[in-house]
Every structure is written in C-alpha cells, then in structure tokens.
C-alpha cells in the first residue's frame, strides 16, 4: 500500500458511493479549488440527512498532513463494508460490536470530506513536501502563493483587530507568510466556503471533527482564549474586548463556555481518546484548543461559534484531532495511525449517538 494521491481519493469516494448506493450519497461541493478541482463529500448512513443528526468530518485541510485523508477513506470503507456484512470492526486491541456499527449507521449521518484541499495535497506530494496552505495564486502574480485554510474561517478572522497585540495569535496578514496567511477576507477561499456550505445545507450537522496531524492530541473548544465559565459577557462577539483577547494566563479576558457545553466537549473528547489508546496504547490526551498561543479563523471554533453568532443555526460542537506524531510517517506507521483515527471517530460517533 501507499499514500493516496488526489485522483485516488476522488475515485475512492466515487467507487464507495457506487458500491454502497443504499447507505451513501455522493455530494458535490459547490466551489472548485483555485486549480479547478472538484471536492466531493460522502454522506454515510442509512437515514436521510433530515432524519437524523450528522457529524462533519474533514481531512486534508493542511496539505502536508498526509495521513488524515487516507484515514477517512479507510474509515468510510470499513463502516460501509461492516454494515453490509453485518459484522463489527477491530483496530488493534479496540473492537466495536456489529450492533455498535449498526447504531452509527442508523442513528447518524457521517459527512466525510476526505480531502478539503486537493491542490495543496498534490503540491505537497509532488513538490514541496512541507507545503501547508492551499494554492491561491498571489494577486500580483508573485511567488507568494496560498492561504492557510484553517485561518480563513469567519471566527475572529481579523486577528489584528480582535486579539491583544502581545497575544501572539497564530495568524498572519502577510501573503508571503509561509504557513499561516489568513487570506484577503474571511471565507475568501473556496475550500472554506465548501465547508460553510455543508453546515448551511445540512442543519442537522451537530458535530464537527477536523482531522489533522501531528502532535498528537485531541482538542476541543475554544482556541481563541482560555476557557472560563463565569463571565458570559466575555465572548468572541463582544467587541469591548477587542484588543484584549488571547493573552495567556491573563485575568482580563477568557472565552466563555457554559459548564454544560464544556462537559459535553470534554466527555466526547475523552471517549475518543480512550478508543485511540485502546488500539496500541498511544495516549493522545485531551486539551483545550488554546495552547501556547490563541488561534483565529480555525474550523473548529467557527463550527462552534455559528450558533452563538446566529441562534437560528444549529449548535455544532467542534473538535480537532491531531493524529500521530509526524506529518508524513512511513506508510507502515501511517497504517497504525489510521487505525487509531478510525477507532477514535467510531467511539466519538457512538457518543454522539447517545450510546
């Protein structure tokens, strides 16, 4: 075996949809990438998208992180085959009973967007291996190509205005920044608009898993500042705190999260981590997405923020899985990481399904 290239990911999704017509739907994301590639999303589940709740699972946002798209294709294939055969699934020392697989398939829809950023993946796999961004051309035709998709979502996107100058927020307004250029405007990138389209089109999506690599760790909300559960006025929506947001260990501002939401986020993260650990003993750990620095414009925060910015929208709990400990491990190790991700996502799904 070997890492999937961009064409193979596309064909794999199509062939899965053809092989399992009763339990899949192949969706065409509306925006082509800058290089004209179509992104497809495989909906997996026995019920229609308006009958049961959904989980949106992303892979390949960052081009150099090669394992997540392969993991999501493998997971999709496993779920569909096990459901058809009526079997359970095993990953290392972690097993799921046939009844659990059936529960996932009948209680949920999994929206699998295996490779959000195909242009970037192709470039990383054939040219610069450590390329992270998409391949947005420089507006002036210069050498500075690409936007960090995971800094382009409409969540505190304007980091210069929204964060304290000394917060060290992980984003850049410089188009020549090698890694974290935020783009010319919020959701300027077609890859980001495709994700937004999924949330808008399928309002029963209630959970969001963005699979990245590598640390490893499982991250939950928020990424903009350290969580606090006391002061509900300290939120990303409150412009009174613009310029004060994001400082480490600063009592002036903390991102508000209700105790109930925090418990849900931690419980689901822990459930995922327990399953990952059972595979071969790797303890990814669970942490808040605010690490050494705050982050702006990330998909997990955007997903969770939508309901608070517009209460008519579904509340979506956002998570980021940083799998494995290398962007591009040898394929033999990548297979082990794929098993960990698969087990983690199935366990998470069972938690979301109320098991």
């Amino acid at each position, binding site marked *: 075996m070997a890492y999937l290239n961009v064409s*193979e990911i596309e064909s794999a999704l199509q062939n899965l949809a053809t092989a399992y017509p009763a339990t899949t739907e192949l969706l065409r994301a509306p925006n082509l990438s800058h290089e004209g590639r179509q992104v497809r999303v495989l909906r997996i589940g026995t019920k229609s998208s308006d009958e049961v709740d959904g989980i949106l699972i992303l892979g390949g946002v960052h081009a150099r992180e090669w394992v997540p798209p392969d993991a999501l294709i493998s997971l999709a294939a496993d779920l569909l085959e096990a459901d058809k055969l009526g079997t359970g699934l*095993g990953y290392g020392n972690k097993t799921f009973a046939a009844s659990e697989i059936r529960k996932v398939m009948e209680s949920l829809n999994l929206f699998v967007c295996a490779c959000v950023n195909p242009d970037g993946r192709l470039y990383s796999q054939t040219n610069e291996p450590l390329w992270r961004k998409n391949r947005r051309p420089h507006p002036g035709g210069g050498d500075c190509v690409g936007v960090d998709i995971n800094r382009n979502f409409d969540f505190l996107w304007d980091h210069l205005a929204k964060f304290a100058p000394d917060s060290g927020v992980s984003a850049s307004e410089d188009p020549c920044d090698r890694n974290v250029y935020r783009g010319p405007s919020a959701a300027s990138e077609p890859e980001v608009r495709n994700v937004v389209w999924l949330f808008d089109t399928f309002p029963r999506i209630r959970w969001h898993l963005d699979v990245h690599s590598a640390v490893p760790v499982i991250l939950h909300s928020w990424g903009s500042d350290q969580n606090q559960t006391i002061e509900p006025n300290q939120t990303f929506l409150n412009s009174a705190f613009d310029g004060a947001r994001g400082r480490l260990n600063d009592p002036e501002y903390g991102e508000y999260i209700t105790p109930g939401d925090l418990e849900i986020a931690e419980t689901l993260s822990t459930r995922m981590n327990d399953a990952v650990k059972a595979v071969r003993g790797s303890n990814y750990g669970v942490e808040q997405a605010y690490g050494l620095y705050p982050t702006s414009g990330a998909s997990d925060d955007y997903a969770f923020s939508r309901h608070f910015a517009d209460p008519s929208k579904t509340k979506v709990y956002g998570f980021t899985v940083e799998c494995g400990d290398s962007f591009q491990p040898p394929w033999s190790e990548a297979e082990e990481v794929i098993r960990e991700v698969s087990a983690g996502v199935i366990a998470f799904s069972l938690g979301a399904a109320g098991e």
Partner: protein
Amino acid sequence: MNQESIIRVQIEAPTLADLRAFADEIKPDLGCRATPRKRDGSFSVDAYLPETQLEVARRSRSAARVTIRILENATAVGRERQKEVGERNRFSVRGEVPRGLGRKE
C-alpha cells in the same frame, strides 16, 4: 519558491513561560496548533525551522532557557515519503472498491 530544507526540532523548556519566550522571539512554525506537552517536569513542542533560522534560533537571547534537539531533516524525509505516494490510480480500473484497515469480525 523557497526550497530551503526545513528541520524538525524539539524545543524543551523548564517552564511554559520559557517556551513561550523562545517562540515569541523566533516565531517558528509550530505545526497546526501549538500544543506544548508536559513531560517529566518540562514542556516541549515540535517546531519546523528553515536551516538558516536554526542557527539564528540557537544564538537567540531566549535560547539559553531552552534545549533544541534536532529530530530530522523534514524536507529530506518528505522527499523520501513522496516515493510512497500512489503513482497511478488504484481505483480507476474496473471500479475497484477501497477496503479499510479494520478487521471485519
């Protein structure tokens, strides 16, 4: 386009503040999300530095409080891994259906 080799290093510091001071000064690529790990009473994070920046990092003011350990030439490793990417399309022939790595049991 910058084709300079990128070196993956582990930065370790006795306190989070020391790690943060070093990162503030050098502004290394810390991956997706800068998530420091606590291990044996110290804090560490992986970083990706162009070769030229590695020397700058070692001479920096805050370097005295951290240990920089080279893990690998990530660019060279990535070029090796490019040989492990599918060359054709395994699924274009006869509509072959992908199979996952899970045991069906």
